[in-house]
Every structure is written in structure tokens, then in C-alpha cells.
């Protein structure tokens, strides 16, 4: 798996951040066994806090389902969320913190660049969950407890067989440059972490020219995969470039006519990373959520709600999905470089989708 090689590199790149905020924290002495997971959190306090707020990039409906599952396990803790694309969400989070408004407990961002930036700003608070032991070192902050990958998302090509016969569907990234797809391609907005991953991993492989030519196809940008697949199903667009695999699984499950292709070049993949935000309003509930969420129970709930792949080996892939092991994933090797690339990506991607001229 190339993924792992890439991720270990990332860990090296991170070494300096760990010195900045390092204080060797340890797992608590006696984790408490809950139903399906272990926790170091003070459950009574968490329930006394009575609420939990998540900021996440996942679509509303799925997020609501995930939180409903947590709420079912802990009915005394009311849940709330804000859903925005990664860039928008992070900008909002930073603005709030500048205004000294601490409204959120746990944040999920699909862009590792922002996660590292937030860690640099001492935005995360450290909490070592007993469940983190099941996560590979590369999937966690160093030292651990600041952030952890909650799922891995990957991108391919999606088409609608009722509009584009399966035989004619694009198989490779390069196929999209065919003039017949002009005005028929959808992508995500520059705020998306996955879209940044697509750009960042494919550019070195396909060459600088690729995206220049791609721009001439006049792709349309959308905020979430729900819009993209919706338009694909009703025939408004012909193909999704960088189609999120979990979205395909979700729509397929609902009975939508869809084809999905992982190009042989590889599927760009990025993690959705979770961490407890410093000075959050419900710190104990946040710890409890992290324990629940990182455990097989929570990971299963996530995969049920949003059909996402768990980074844990002991959690099966989402319904109808190929296991991670069988994919050829392209994961950015150097997250620091990835982070530095974002401003230029955002500007150029905005131009490609017509948001800037």
C-alpha cells in the first residue's frame, strides 16, 4: 500500500510541530468500559454538560444520522452541528476564535493542511483516547491525542449509464479532456479538501498541462457530492471528476443509476480528520464523543450514516464498498507542502470553475 509510505513521510514532516506543543501526555490509568468502547472521559460530567457540537464537512443528513447514533447511546447529551465545506468551515472557526466565541467541541476537516495549521495555532486540545491505540501511527498527530483520522475518502470518475453508456464512460483521468465532455463535467469547489487532494496528487502525475486543458472543458463547481450526484442522475451533467466514492455508494444504495471508475493511475485520497477544539464549551462530552466515534461502534455508525471507509482494520468497509486494501490510493506525501499549496490551489481552481476570471 502506497498510502502507508506516504503517510510515514508525513509523520516525519510533522516532527517539528510536536516539539512545539509537546508535553508527553499519557492515557488515563483506568479507562472505563462502555458499551462497545473504552473511555477516559468523565461520563457523568459529560452528561451534565448536556450538549455536544460538531463542525464537519459531511452532508447535513449524514451528519444528523451520525449524531443521532451518539445521542441514542447518550440521550442526555443533545447534539448540534454546523456543516460547511472544509475551507468555509475552517475560515468560520478561525473567525469565531478571533472573536473569542468558543462554540464548537470537535471539528472534522477533510483538508490535512488546515488541520496542521490549526495545530500550529494551538487550536486543538490533547486527549488520548483508549481507542486511538487501534489507529496506525500515521493516522494520528504526534504526539497523539491532538487529531486522528476518522475516515478516508477517495475520488474517481462517476457517470450515469442512462446518459453515458458504460462502454463509453471515461476510464482514465486523461479521457476527460475529450471535447465531448465539454460543459458536462462537475467538480467540487475549491473549499473542498478532497478536491485539493485530487489536484495535488494528480498534477505531478498528469503534468501541469492537464489542468490547463481541463479548464477549457468548463467544469461546474458544487459544494457537495449530493448536488453532483443529483445532477448526474437527472442528466444535467455527464461525468463527475473526482467523484467522492462514499457519495456513489450512498446514491447507489438508494437505487440511482450510476457507474463508478477508479482510474488505473490511482485514486486521490485524503482523510477526514477529527480533533477536540481547545476551549470548547463541552470538554467532557467532546472526549466521550471521540472515544465513541473512534471505536468500532462509532466507526460503524459513521459508515452506516455516510458510507465512509474507516481507517481501522477491524471495521468492515461500508455497504457495497471495496475495502481500502484493494484500492490504489494516491495520498499526498508531504502534508506541510500540501498546506502551503492551498492558497495557490484555491486561486487556480476558482479560475478553472469560473469563480475568478
Amino acid at each position: 500500500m502506497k498510502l502507508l509510505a506516504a503517510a510515514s513521510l508525513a509523520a516525519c514532516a510533522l516532527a517539528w510541530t510536536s516539539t512545539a506543543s509537546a508535553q508527553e501526555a499519557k492515557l488515563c490509568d483506568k479507562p472505563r468500559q462502555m458499551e462497545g468502547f473504552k473511555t477516559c472521559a468523565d461520563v457523568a460530567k459529560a452528561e451534565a454538560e448536556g450538549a455536544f457540537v460538531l463542525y464537519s464537512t459531511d452532508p447535513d443528513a449524514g451528519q444528523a444520522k451520525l449524531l443521532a447514533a451518539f445521542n441514542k447511546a447518550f440521550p442526555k447529551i443533545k447534539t448540534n452541528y454546523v456543516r460547511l465545506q472544509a475551507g468555509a468551515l475552517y475560515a468560520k472557526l478561525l473567525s469565531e476564535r478571533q472573536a473569542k466565541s468558543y462554540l464548537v467541541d470537535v471539528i472534522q476537516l477533510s483538508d490535512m493542511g488546515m488541520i496542521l495549521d490549526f495545530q500550529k495555532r494551538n487550536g486543538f486540545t490533547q486527549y488520548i483516547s483508549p481507542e486511538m491505540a487501534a489507529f496506525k501511527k500515521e493516522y494520528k498527530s504526534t504526539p497523539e491525542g491532538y487529531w486522528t483520522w476518522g475516515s478516508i475518502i477517495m475520488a474517481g470518475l462517476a457517470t450515469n449509464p442512462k446518459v453515458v453508456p458504460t462502454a463509453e464512460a471515461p476510464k482514465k483521468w486523461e479521457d476527460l479532456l475529450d471535447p465531448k465532455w465539454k460543459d458536462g463535467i462537475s467538480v467540487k469547489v475549491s473549499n473542498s479538501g478532497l478536491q485539493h487532494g485530487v489536484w495535488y496528487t494528480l498534477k505531478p502525475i498528469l503534468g501541469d498541462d492537464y489542468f490547463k486543458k481541463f479548464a477549457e472543458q468548463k467544469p461546474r463547481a458544487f459544494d457537495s457530492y449530493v448536488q453532483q450526484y443529483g445532477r448526474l442522475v437527472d442528466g444535467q451533467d455527464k461525468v463527475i471528476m473526482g467523484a467522492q466514492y462514499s457519495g456513489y455508494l450512498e446514491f447507489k444504495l438508494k437505487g440511482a443509476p450510476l457507474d463508478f471508475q477508479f482510474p488505473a493511475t490511482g485514486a486521490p485520497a485524503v482523510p477526514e480528520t477529527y480533533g477536540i477544539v481547545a476551549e470548547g464549551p463541552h470538554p467532557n462530552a467532546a472526549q466521550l464523543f471521540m472515544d465513541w466515534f473512534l471505536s468500532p461502534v462509532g466507526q460503524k455508525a459513521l459508515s452506516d450514516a455516510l458510507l465512509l471507509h474507516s481507517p481501522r482494520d477491524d471495521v468492515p468497509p461500508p455497504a457495497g464498498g471495496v475495502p481500502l486494501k484493494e484500492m490504489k490510493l494516491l495520498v499526498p506525501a508531504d502534508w506541510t507542502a500540501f498546506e502551503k499549496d492551498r492558497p495557490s490551489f484555491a486561486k487556480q481552481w476558482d479560475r478553472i470553475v469560473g469563480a475568478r476570471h
Partner: protein
Amino acid sequence: MTAITDASVPRPLGRPARNWQPAVTAAVVLVVSLLVLLPLVFLVEESLNVGDALTFPPEAYGISNYIEMFQEDLGILTNTVSIAVMATIMAILIGFTLAWILTRTNVPGRERLERLMELPYYMTPLVGALAWAVLAAPKSGFFNQLWHYIGGPGDIVDVYSMFGIAWIMALFEGTVAFVMISASMKSMDPALEESARVMGASKLRTALTVTLPLVMPGVLGAMLFVFAEMLGSFAAALVIGIPARIYVITTSIWESTLSYPPDYGRAAAMGLALFVVMFGMLTFYRWMVRRGSFATITGKAFRPRAMDMGRLSWLLLGVCLLYIFLAVVLPIGALILTSLQRFATVILSQAEFTFANYRMALGLGPVRTALFNSLTLGFGVASVGVLVMALIVWIIYRSQLRGRGAIEYLVMFPQAVPRMVFGLALLWAWLNIPIPIYGTLWLLALGYFTVMLPLGVRTLAGVVLQIDKSLEECARVCGASWGYQMRSVTLPLLRPGILAAWLLIFMACVRELGVSVFLMGPNAKVIAPSIVSAFASSGTELTAAMALIQTASVVVALIILFRLTRGMTKELA
């Protein structure tokens, strides 16, 4: 007799009541100035920020944001202007036609029709845009499906175009144009037309030589006003424009603010550019209204004699109903149909009907909370707001306060600032003002109040100016203190106006989007941005259900209100 007449009885006034007027006035003026001006100051400062966008106050100042805007975003500026021009022309055509039919002809059921014309206002452009996306999308839109069904090749309509955006904006702004133009038509003394007829001019000649020139200032005023609104409109540009790769200033502001790294400088510069243009236009508009007001608007409403159109009047009725059909019936119908489907995106003929979307929408805690918050905010801001606004109006038009002209200008300021831009400015101001209300409903309430000022003050001013000043003076001479006079005379007399303003503000709050998108937080969600968010990430069918729930709640709230206040309005009617 003597009991009353004995002049030696000392004047029976007790201890003089304390006069609260100066203190109250000063407080109101101060608060309003802060609310209106402070955000703009922050906005200007941010537009000059060329350092790190997230550091405030800025590390470095410069004008590169403006230079970049003209170098890189010229296309966006052109888009904005083109769409606004197209939409304005259409809206004025709609407004003028309807106004003419309803004030100048004997179209059947005139009064009912006039009330019907208000409906599109309650629809809101956001709901309208969502509906028209369902109706007129290429391939899957209802129109195109129908077209394919009868064997037509290709698509007949595509809403994802500049024209499509302009069409939706015009459809829902047309009712504003209608109200403004028909007001100027109504305020024209019919004797002016009649004397032309007596002198021997034909109907047509009268219309061309007398009616048109007299109504022209009103039409031009409406045109400027609508154009300014169009420049700052957001909902249609968001729902239709972004998928169509057509970005305008408001959507660009939205994108550059809500992205990482955020480009606040670009957003602020664009916002100020829009502000300058709109400010210029509205100043021109006010100047024109003032100049023209002596000629036609005498404050007296005439009941113009209608022209007898014979059988043609049924055709005119058809025109009016067509507008209602396009702006209300069709969109609501499309949304209802969509919201009842399991899968909005599936071809109509294979539709599966279900109430699941309503269960889902109402089941989503955040949606319920957002709806509840919006209604609460609407109720609160409207209730407290109208009282404060009535006070402001009174200060402007009735008090002897020095500088009240400046206050008048000040409260009209937010109108010249596009809602989005004001939202951005408010965000900036409250991020940096050390009062911890960011992320709470209080900030939304303050924001709403500030942007509703022009609407409320304008509505109330019309009523205050119609109240004979001596009604108030008489109370003072009778010995009432200022506060008692306001309570016992001024406010009761303002009641019908207050009710009208209340309704307008309530509606405007519940549908508010531009300010809300910037100011809402996890504990302060409101409905319009939630619908936008659902549109982005929850699929059309759920969004349609939410939009309908919003519309229905507003209607129910209004019906309850009308019921409760019926006695009150009748008494003064």
C-alpha cells in the same frame, strides 16, 4: 358654572413630570449611529488590509485589493451589471404592466387582484430560485421533461444562464416595482387627465402627453431602486449562478469570505465597490423623488377613474393571473411535487411519492431549531424594532432636534449597502468588538434590526407624516408630558402604520439570508441559510420540503396575527 370658572384656583398641575425626551433621543441617535456606521468603518479598514487576512487590526495597509479587483474580477463586475440590467428591465416591464392594468383599467376583480399581487413578496427569491431550478433546469426540469414527452428535440428552456438568473430576480422583484409604480399612478390627480380629454385629446393622446410624463418620475424612481436591489441580490445568483459558472459580486463575496485562506480583502473591496454604486444610485433616486414629489404626490390618494377596456379587460385579467401563476402557483406546485418524491432527480414518470422528506426535515433537530429561531427573531425584532423605529421617525419628523436630517440619512444608509456586504461588515465589526455576542441570536437580532431600519422607518414615516401635528401638540398643551403624549396619542395613532411595519419586518427577518449567512452559529441557526445549506448538501427533495415548511410557517404566523389584530385594524380603517 363656578367650579370650572373660578380663575383663582391654582393651576392643578402637580410636580412637573421629568422630561425624558432629550435623554431618549440622545440614546437612540447614539445607538443607531454605532449600529450603522461602525460596521462600515471596519469594512473600509479591512478592504485596505493587505497583510494576513486573519489578523486585525491589519499589519499592512494598501490599495492592492482594489487594484486586483479591477485586474482580475472585471468579468464578475460585468456579469453583475449585465444581470442587474436585464432583471431591472424585466421587473419594470412586469411592474408597469400590472400597475397600469390595476390602476387605470376596469379589469374585473381589481381590488382582489391588487392583494394577490403581494403574494410573490411572501414567496421570497430563495424559494423562487429553488423552485425555478426544478422547473426549468435543462433535461430534468419539468418544462423540458414535458417538452421531451411531447416529442420535442433537445431542451426548450435552461434556467442556468444569465437570462435565467435575471428572470427569477425580475419575477420576484416585479411586485416591488408594481407597488412603487402603482403608487405614483394612484397619486396622480385624475383631473389632469380629464382636462386633456375635455380639451379634445383622444385616449391615446392623453396617455402619451399627460399620463406618461406624469408617471415617468415614478417609473424612473422604481427603476433605480430595483436596479440597486438587483445589484445586491444574492439568492438567485447562489442557487442558479454558481452551477452555471456565472459568478456575480455577491456570490464572489460569499466565496472569498467562506474559504480558506479567506480573502476578506477581496470581499471587502468588492462590497465597497457595490456600496459606492448603490449609494450613488439611491442618492440620485432620493433626489429625484424629492424634486418630483411636489408635482404628483400630494399625499392625497385619488381614486382614478378606470378606462373601460370592454372585452379586452378579460385579457388583462389573464395577464395578471399569468404573473401570479408564474411567480406563485407554478413554483409552489413544483416544490410540492418535488418534496413528495423519494428522489427528486428521478424522471417524473417514475416518481415515487413519500412524506419521508417532511419527516426528515422536521426530524432534523437543527431545522426545527432554525425555524423556531427565525420565527422568534422575526417576532422579537419586529416588536421591539417598530417601537424604536417609531421613535426614530418621530425624532426625524416631529422633534426640533438639531441634526435630525443627518439621522434621517443615517437610518437610510443600510439600504445603500447590499445585504451581503452589510453582513460581512457586521461580521467584521463584531469579531473585533469585545462584546461576546458573536454566535448568538442577539447578534442576529442586532444585525436584522440594523438592516431593517430603512424598511421600517420608511413605512412608519408615511404614517407619521399623515398625522396632524396639532394632535400631538394639543396633548402637550393639555398638560401631558412627552412620554405620556407618546403613549396616549402618538403611538395609538401610529397603530395601523406600526402594524404594517411590523408585518414587513417580520417577513423580512424570517426570509433574511444575506446577513444571516455571516452571523449564524451552531447555537444561532436560522432558516434561510439552513435552506441554502440543505440545497448544497441534502438534495433538492429535502430542500423543497424545508422551503415549503418555511413558507407554510410564515403563512400560519401571519394568519394568526391577522386574526389577533383584526379588531384593532378595523377600528381605525
